[in-house]
Structures are given as structure tokens and as C-alpha cells.
């Protein structure tokens, strides 16, 4: 019940918000809803057993029995934090966008809630078709968020976003259907359940691309790789980010990209173990390319938001190599980095949005010397920057450290290359920071007709939890990792033949 409630409550909220008559109380209402949802998701902790690697709080009912499609929710250490991240970022994004969305607020808020529901469903659904449903559903609200409330080139961006992601998912759908037939062959009855996928033994012929496992693997991997996005498929991301409204960017970067990496962890690596091992080098390669390429391109961006977007490409490259390192360090680091990236990039987008609200420009060259004008804003930005470049004691460090260690352990060559991202990350972030905050005051900053105001109380409220998390996660990662430890250990140790048990867990109070 709990997981269903967590997933479907936002849908209800979306409906209420969409029909709410009073414009004035709309935003507080939505915020309240988002907080309720967050509190509800915290309830998962109460029932979650961190010592178990099994699927917990499972809800499983037949849905379309003929094809073995089930209504199947479950949570384990891998998805737990992503769920929390989602519910956490939603109120933050809403509060962050308090003023930036002026038109069609109702629709926007409804979109946010639907998106939240879809993302939560993606993280919790354990049935392929069910998963696919949520996966695709998440596209729609984001499509509208960018397309309606976006910037000048929003239509271009949103169509690009949609088509890119769609291309991958369609292949995935084909693969899912094929897998369902395989289950029918193997077990006699058709099933779309993830657990049955895990039990499948898909033929793999090393070095032959047309072997079934490799094909399925490629189809799934392509879908997730586009979402992540990995190097050559990333071009939708900067456009989408630049045009998206602030909360859209926050959620897109904070959670949606994680759907790709999460997909790898949940749907690719355990399902296609041989192919994963066999082609890990390729993903390491594009991961490393992504790190370096993203960083280099980010360095020369004239637009802050685009810079942050490319930095996401770089960071997601880390996550990818972490996951495909296939050892405890890499995978743990990868998962942790997903959370880090959600927090730090989310916060960066929020901050960029805040300054954009003040100056209506994101061009780096028009800024300069902001530090003298907006001290609190600068501090917040600086802390988030630190987190982004993985300075120790911030969350980013833990993730990057583990990922690099894992990559190094897997194959030191990747380690050597990937480490360069550490330097390049500092270069592009600090250079941007320098150009925006230091130096003589830029044209936007010294504009006397429009004096800039430092963070308002609301904005501080938005940023405070992010900053607290940056340090909390950096200083005491055990708190977070302990919940995932069992699952991740299980994940790595049984990579060759992954099975996921179902644990009834503590009795869920109805």
C-alpha cells in the first residue's frame, strides 16, 4: 500500500491542483502537497529493512494475466534513495520556482506532480511493462514543461528531447516484448516480471553482435544511455536544460537523468550479465569520453546553464564508469554519485534560475563581481560549486572517490583517464565562478537602475536543505550508504547470476 500511495498520491495531487479554483493559494497548496509526499516517502524508512538485499514492501497483483503483466511495486537499497531524492527535489523545485512561473501555474504544478509520480513509478516498478509505462509517462509532463514554460527555443528543445528519448525507449519496448516471449519459452507462462527476467538464461555468444543477449542488451542500453546521456547521444541535454524553466531543469537534471543510470543498474546489468561483462569496456570508454568531453565543452560555454548542463554530461560519465566498473566501489560510488548529482546539479540550476530571475540573462560575459553584491548568493553558489567539483567534505567527493577507485580497480587505464576529470571539473566550474562572481562588476551587476537583491528568505529556505545535505552526505556518508549496502553487495557479488528475493518486511500498517 505504501509504495502505491507514494506513486499515485502525486497523481491525485496533480488532479486537485489542476482543478483548484483559487489562484492565490495554489502555490502554497502545491508545496504542501509536495511536502506531504516527501513525508510519506520518509515513511518508507520505517518499514525498510536495511540489512536485507531483497525486494521489500512488495505489492504485486496480476494486471493483464494473459501476458503475465503485473502491477508490481517493490523497493530495495538501490531505489530507496532515488525515491527519496525525487520526493525531496520536488518541493525544492516548487519552492524554487515560486515566482519564475507566472502563467498557467495550475498546469505547471500539475505537470510537476505527474512527473513526480512517473519518476517514482519508474524507480519502483518491477514489472517491465509497468516500468515502461512510467518511463514513457515521465516524458510527457517534461515535454510540456519545456514546451510551454520554456525559453525562446523551447519548441526545438522539447521536440529534440522527446524524440531522442523516444527513439531509445521504443527499442527498449521491442526488447521487453522479446524478453516476455523468452520467459514464455523458458517458464511456460509469459511474464514481464523483472524477477523472471533475472532468472532467464539468455544465450550469449561472445563477440557476436547478433546473439540474443547482445541484442537485448544493446536495445535496453541504448534507451538508458540516451537518458543518461552518454557522450555521442547527449546533445539533447544542453538544449533541454537551457530552454527548460528552472524547476524543470532541477528535476530533469536531479532525477530524470538518474532514471537512465538506474535503468542500467536494474534492467541491464543483472539481466544481461555476460553481455555486461563483455561490453563493460565500451561503456567505460564512452563514460571516460563523456567525462572529459563534457568537461572540456562545458569549459567554453558562454551560457551558465549550458555550462551546468554539460557538466551534467561529465558527471553522468562518472556514474557510468562507476557502474560498469562492476565492483563494490564503483557501483556504490555510482549510486552515491547519482544522489550527489541530484543535489548539487539541482542546486546549481536553482541558483542559476535565481540569478536569471534577477537579471534575465545567463551570459557569463555579462556578469562579473557578483560576490561583492550578493554575498549570500555567492556563498551558496560556492558551496554548491565545491560539491560539484568534489572537494572533500562535500558529497561529491565521496562519490567521485569511490567511482575512481572502482574504475581504477576494474582497469587502471580508465582510472588514469577518468582522473583527469577531477582537474577539468575544477577548471570549468572555477573559471565560470571567477568570471561571474569575481573581477570587476559586469554590465548586469552594476546596472544602477536595477539593483540586485540578495537571497530572499524563501530562497534561503530552498537552498538550506540542499547545503545541509551537501555536507551531511560528505561528512557522514555511512548514514546513506548503510541503507544501500546490502543491496549493492548483493548486486556486485551475484553479478553473474543475479536473483532478487522478495521480502515481506515488517507488516505494513494499512
Amino acid at each position: 500500500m505504501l509504495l502505491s500511495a507514494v506513486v499515485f498520491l502525486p497523481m491525485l495531487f496533480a488532479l486537485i491542483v489542476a482543478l483548484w479554483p483559487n489562484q492565490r493559494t495554489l502555490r502554497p497548496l502545491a508545496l504542501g502537497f509536495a511536502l506531504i509526499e516527501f513525508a510519506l516517502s520518509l515513511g518508507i524508512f520505517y518499514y525498510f529493512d536495511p540489512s536485507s538485499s531483497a525486494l521489500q514492501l512488495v505489492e504485486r497483483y496480476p494486471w493483464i494475466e494473459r501476458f503475465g503483466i503485473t502491477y508490481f511495486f517493490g523497493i530495495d537499497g538501490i531505489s530507496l534513495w532515488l525515491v527519496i531524492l525525487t520526493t525531496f527535489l520536488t518541493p525544492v523545485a516548487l519552492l524554487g520556482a515560486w515566482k519564475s512561473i507566472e502563467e498557467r501555474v495550475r498546469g505547471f504544478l500539475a505537470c510537476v506532480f505527474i512527473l513526480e509520480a512517473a519518476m517514482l513509478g519508474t524507480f519502483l516498478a518491477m514489472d517491465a511493462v509497468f516500468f515502461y509505462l512510467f518511463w514513457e509517462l515521465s516524458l510527457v509532463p517534461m515535454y510540456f514543461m519545456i514546451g510551454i514554460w520554456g525559453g525562446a527555443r523551447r519548441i526545438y528543445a522539447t521536440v529534440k528531447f522527446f524524440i531522442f528519448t523516444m527513439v531509445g525507449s521504443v527499442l527498449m519496448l521491442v526488447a521487453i516484448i522479446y524478453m516476455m516471449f523468452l520467459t514464455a519459452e523458458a517458464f511456460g507462462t509469459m511474464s514481464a516480471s523483472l524477477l523472471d527476467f533475472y532468472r532467464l538464461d539468455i544465450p550469449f555468444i561472445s563477440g557476436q553482435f547478433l546473439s540474443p543477449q547482445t541484442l537485448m542488451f544493446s536495445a535496453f542500453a541504448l534507451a538508458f544511455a540516451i537518458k543518461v546521456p552518454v557522450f555521442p547521444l547527449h546533445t539533447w541535454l544542453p538544449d533541454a536544460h537551457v530552454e527548460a524553466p528552472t524547476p524543470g531543469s532541477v528535476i530533469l537534471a536531479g532525477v530524470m537523468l538518474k532514471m537512465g543510470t538506474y535503468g542500467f543498474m536494474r534492467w541491464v546489468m543483472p539481466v544481461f550479465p555476460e553481455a555486461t561483462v563483455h561490453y563493460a569496456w565500451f561503456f567505460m570508454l564512452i563514460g571516460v569520453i563523456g567525462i572529459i568531453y563534457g568537461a572540456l565543452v562545458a569549459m567554453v560555454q558562454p551560457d551558465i546553464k549550458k555550462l551546468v548542463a554539460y557538466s551534467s554530461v561529465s558527471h553522468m560519465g562518472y556514474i557510468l564508469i562507476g557502474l560498469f566498473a562492476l565492483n563494490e566501489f564503483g557501483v556504490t560510488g555510482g549510486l552515491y554519485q547519482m544522489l550527489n548529482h541530484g543535489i548539487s546539479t539541482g542546486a546549481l540550476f536553482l541558483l542559476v534560475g535565481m540569478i536569471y530571475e534577477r537579471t534575465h540573462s545567463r551570459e557569463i560575459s555579462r556578469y562579473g563581481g557578483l560576490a561583492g553584491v550578493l554575498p549570500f548568493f555567492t556563498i551558496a553558489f560556492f558551496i554548491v560549486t565545491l560539491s560539484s567539483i568534489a572537494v572533500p567534505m562535500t558529497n561529491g567527493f565521496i562519490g567521485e572517490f569511490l567511482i575512481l577507485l572502482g574504475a581504477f580497480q576494474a582497469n587502471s587505464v580508465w582510472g588514469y583517464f577518468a582522473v583527469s576529470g577531477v582537474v577539468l571539473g575544477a577548471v570549468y566550474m572555477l573559471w565560470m565562478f571567477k568570471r561571474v562572481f569575481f573581477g570587476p562588476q559586469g554590465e548586469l551587476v552594476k546596472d544602477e537602475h536595477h539593483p540586485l537583491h540578495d537571497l530572499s528568505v524563501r530562497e534561503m529556505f530552498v537552498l538550506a536543505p540542499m547545503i545541509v545535505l551537501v555536507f551531511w552526505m560528505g561528512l557522514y556518508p555511512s548514514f546513506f550508504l548503510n541503507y544501500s549496502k546490502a543491496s549493492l553487495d548483493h548486486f556486485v557479488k551475484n553479478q553473474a547470476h543475479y536473483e532478487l528475493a522478495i521480502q515481506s518486511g515488517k507488516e505494513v500498517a494499512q
Partner: protein
Amino acid sequence: MNHPILMATLLLAPFVGFLINGLRYKRHSANLAGVIATTAVVISFISAILLVVDLVGLPPETRVISVKFFEWISVASLKINAGFVLDPVSAIMILVITGVGSLIHLFSIGYMHHDAGAAKYFAYLNLFLFNMLILVLGDSLPVMFVGWEGVGLCSYLLIGFWFTDDQKAAAGMKAFVTNRVGDAAFLLGMFILFLSFGTLTFSEINQLAPTDPTLAWMNPVTLGTLFLFIGATGKSAQIPLYVWLPDAMAGPTPVSALIHAATMVTAGVYMIVRLNPLFLAAPNTMMIIAIIGALTVLLGATIGMTQWDIKKVLAYSTVSQLGYMFLACGVGAFGAAMFHLMTHAFFKALMFLGSGSVIHAMHEEQDIRKMGGLKKYLPITHWTFFFGWVAIIGLPPFAGFFSKDEILAFAFFSPLGHEALWAVGALGATLTAFYMTRLMALTFWGKSRVPKDTHPHESPPTMSIPLIVLGVLSIVGGWIGIPHVIGAILPGHPENFLEHWLHHSIKPIPGLTPFDVTTEWVLMGVSVTLAICSAFVAYHMYVQAPQKPEKVAKAIGPVYKVIYNKYFVDEAYFAGIINPLVKASKGLWYYIDVNFIDKTTYVISDVVRGGGSLVRSLQNGNIQVYAMYISLGLVATLLFLLVR
């Protein structure tokens, strides 16, 4: 008092100071901020003393206080605690850090009292100390790395303290990025060590370090130490990553004294000393360290001879002196390295503070060509500076003499050393004497070239007291490590206290034979003589015959130009690395991202769209034509069925 609380006080006092000053910095007056910060550091200093006293009380074999606060990272076999360890090596460090730190904080009260951002400044300074303490006390490489990056961060903040100046902000960034290059190598070093030893704790690594040295290059020990050393070159401003340090002088002068002379830059040396058994097991690395150290000595010294900015001279001097420390490490003389680290901290901090006093007096003027004859305006500054000068050029019995001499002796005698290394070291000492004398001469002695409208004045007591204290330390600081040869002839035969203190922390150099006393005396004599001669030459050139330097410069023409321009290293880096990188990035963005990938997708979409428009002509909206298709389809279907 129990150790965890003391340790916590030691670490957190500066942090609390940082929070107080940092969170309310707009409302604090400069003086109040200074007092808060200084108090915090003094508290820290007192705890450090108390801890060290406890440490002394322990038996020498188990002279370690380790405190574990909580488990920081624990993944699979990787278990890193937020643990701190105080042993003889780190004891020296915390005393130096908190001690010198207190003095510099005190100095800063005076130096910064007119600055609007003073509270921010003190906050950063406290934060720096906090990080530095983590660095030296951390019981494992990752914890050290926390401080390692933390100090880099504070250094960045402090260098760019006056951020409205673009160059200063750029200097900060340069420092951080250069350090980051080192840090990346540091990370790699850690990974290599972890993967071969399975641990990152200093004590365990040192225990596991192989006892017989290996000459293989691709050995994890060699590689790991090499990468750690690259990390150290970043932090400690060695070739090739020293370039940030001279630029770092953009920060407030006390910062230069604390961070860029006394403490942070020595972190690399400290790290190597910390892992000395490991480094000893990698002779190849040791050789590289020694060579790099020696080269840096020369590089820093030569450039220092030509600079006109008082702080730049000191900065290059720092680079050079750090080279000595690495030279010492490279030849296995870790004790000597620590010794020089300490004495250098005293006299270089002193000289930086002195220069700060001068700059303060000259109203932010740093060009020594506009100084001269300041002796009479700034007596205290002059005399304290004078002691620093004698210490650095290695005049006995001042601090620098003992430490530098020990390094040179080890360079000569150690099986890891070489005569050439000694020669370079001695040459470096000579050059040091020259440029330091030049600095003294141009600043304090000779004719005044002070502009008319500037009225130099002596600094307030908050600034002069630290100068005096450090001056005293520059005189006596060397006495804790009197070499045996000298100790033997002195009354009371003072033993080498430092060596004794570090005995259990430092692994002896394998194959080291006791020094030949005669040779040692000769070497000592040669280097001191050379230094004195060179000092006199410099005095002559800059005080008695002020036109001579120009002639010399003209005589050696291109060489001077190269040296004056710091060997064009910055330019080379820009031309060779940074500019190509930026250009390549722009190229990547423009050609790959925008033109290749996007265009490719456009091509795909165009193909689809083209196909669509081809088919679209069939779907022209004319219902009857559609109906015709349907009927044709029906006909075809029926035909098929009939024919079949």
C-alpha cells in the same frame, strides 16, 4: 584531559572561529573578528601543547596518540575512519601550525584592521588552520586528502581575497587548478596503494611497505609513491607545478606567510615524511624526488635573483627552500626535511610578515625599486628581517644553517644521494645568499628611493610582536637539531634533539654509514663560505655600486631575460597546454557537438521528414483518393485470395 576532547578542541577551535566570523561577517568590526580568530587559534595552540606534553610522556616506542571519531567511508574492504593520529612528526607540525598560526593571526589584526572584509579574512584563515590540522593529523591518506584539498580551497579563497581585481581572482584559480592536477595524481597514488596494500591508513601502509627496495618502475610501490609525489609537487610548489605559488602572492601578505611559506606548502614534504618507509622502498621515486628538489632549488633561486616585487622574491625563495626539503626527502633525510621545514617556517614566516610590515608601511607598495633605506623608518621590522636573512642564508648559528647543512650533508653522504646533488644544493645556498642580500639591500639599506608622498611608519605592536617572536625563533629554532659534529665541540655536548625525537617515526636509510667528520666539516665550511661571499657580492652590487646590476644584466643579456621572465614557464604552459585545450574545447563544441552530432541527427530527421513528405503526397486530403486506395487494396486482397 582525555585525548579525544583535546583533539577535538584542537581541530574544532579554528572551525568554530570560522563559523562565528563567517556567518556574521558583515556585522563584525575588523578588530573583534581578529580577536575571535586569534583566540580560536590560541586555544588550538594550547590544546596542541597539552597534547604534545602528553605525547612526550609516553614511552618512545609507542609514542602515538590516535583518536577515532566516526567511521567516514566504509565500502567493502575500504574502511576509512575520521581518525586522527598524533605522533612525533605531526606533533612538530601542529606546534608549528598553531604556533606560527597564532602569531600570524595576531599580526593580521593589525594588518587587516582597515579592510572591510576583515572578518571574512579571519574566517578563511581559521578555516585554513582547521583544514591544515586535519591534513597533518589525519590517520589515513583520504583524511589527509580532506585537509589537502581543504587547504588548497582556503588558499584559493585567500589568494582571491580581493576578488574585484581580476588578476588576483585569476591567481586564486590558478593555484587551485594547479593544485588539482597534483590532487588528481594524489588520488591515483592512493588508488594504487589501496589496491596493492588494501588499506590507506598510514600506520598500516608503513607496516606493509616492503623492506627491500624495488627498482622496477611499474611496481605499485614505485608508481604509487611517484603519483603521491606528483601530488606533493602540486601542493609544495615543485617543478613542474610550482607556477601557482608566485602568483599566490596576490593574497594578503600574512596569508603568504602562513599558507604559502610556513604551513601549506610544506604539506607535500610532510606527506612524504609520513610515508617514509614506503618511499624508501622505492628508490626510483626517491631519485626523482631528489632531482626535482635540486632543480627546484636552482630554479627558485635564479628567478628570485631577478624579481623586483618583494613578495615575489620571497615566493621564489620559498620555492627554492621547498626544493631543499624535497632534496632532503629524496636522499632519505626525512628528519632533515622536517627540520628544514620547521626552521623555514620560522624564518620565512618572519620574512613574509616583515615584508607585510614593509608593504603596510609603504601603503601597499611592493616594488623594491621604490624602497631602500627603510632601516631608519622601520627599525623593528628591519632587525627582525635581518635575523630572518641571516637564518636563510645559512649563517651559523642561526636556524637555517643547521637545517640546510644537515640536508647538504645527507645529500653528500646518503647512499641515495650524490655529490652532484650536494653541489647543486651548495650552489643554491650561494644563490640564496645573493638574492636575499639583494632583497635586504634594496629594501632596508642603501639610499631611500621612497616616493615623496609616502611616509613609511613602523607597524603597531600587534604586528611587531609576532615579528619579534619569530625573529627569536629564527635565531634559536635551529638549536634543537644541532649536528653531531658541531654538538661534539660545543659545551655540554647538546645532542641532536630532533633526531632523537623522530627516531621511531623515521626509518633509517638503508646502507647509511656514519658521516666522515672531516668531510662534513669541509662541506660545511665550503657552503658557508660560498654563502658569505655571495652575500658580500650582493651587498656590494646593490648598496655600494647600484649601477652594477644593470651592467651585469646587460652583459648576460638573453640569459637574464630568460630568468627575469621566469624561464617563460607560464607562457609555455599557456601556449602548450591551456590555449590548445581551450581551443580544442571550442572546436569540440563547435565541430563535434553542434556540427557533427546535431547535424547527424538532423540528417536522420531530414531523411524521415523527406520520406514522410514523399508519402504525404499520397495523403493529400482528398477523401476520394483515399477511398480509391482502399478499394484498390480490396481488389488486391481479393485477387490474392482468388489466385491463391
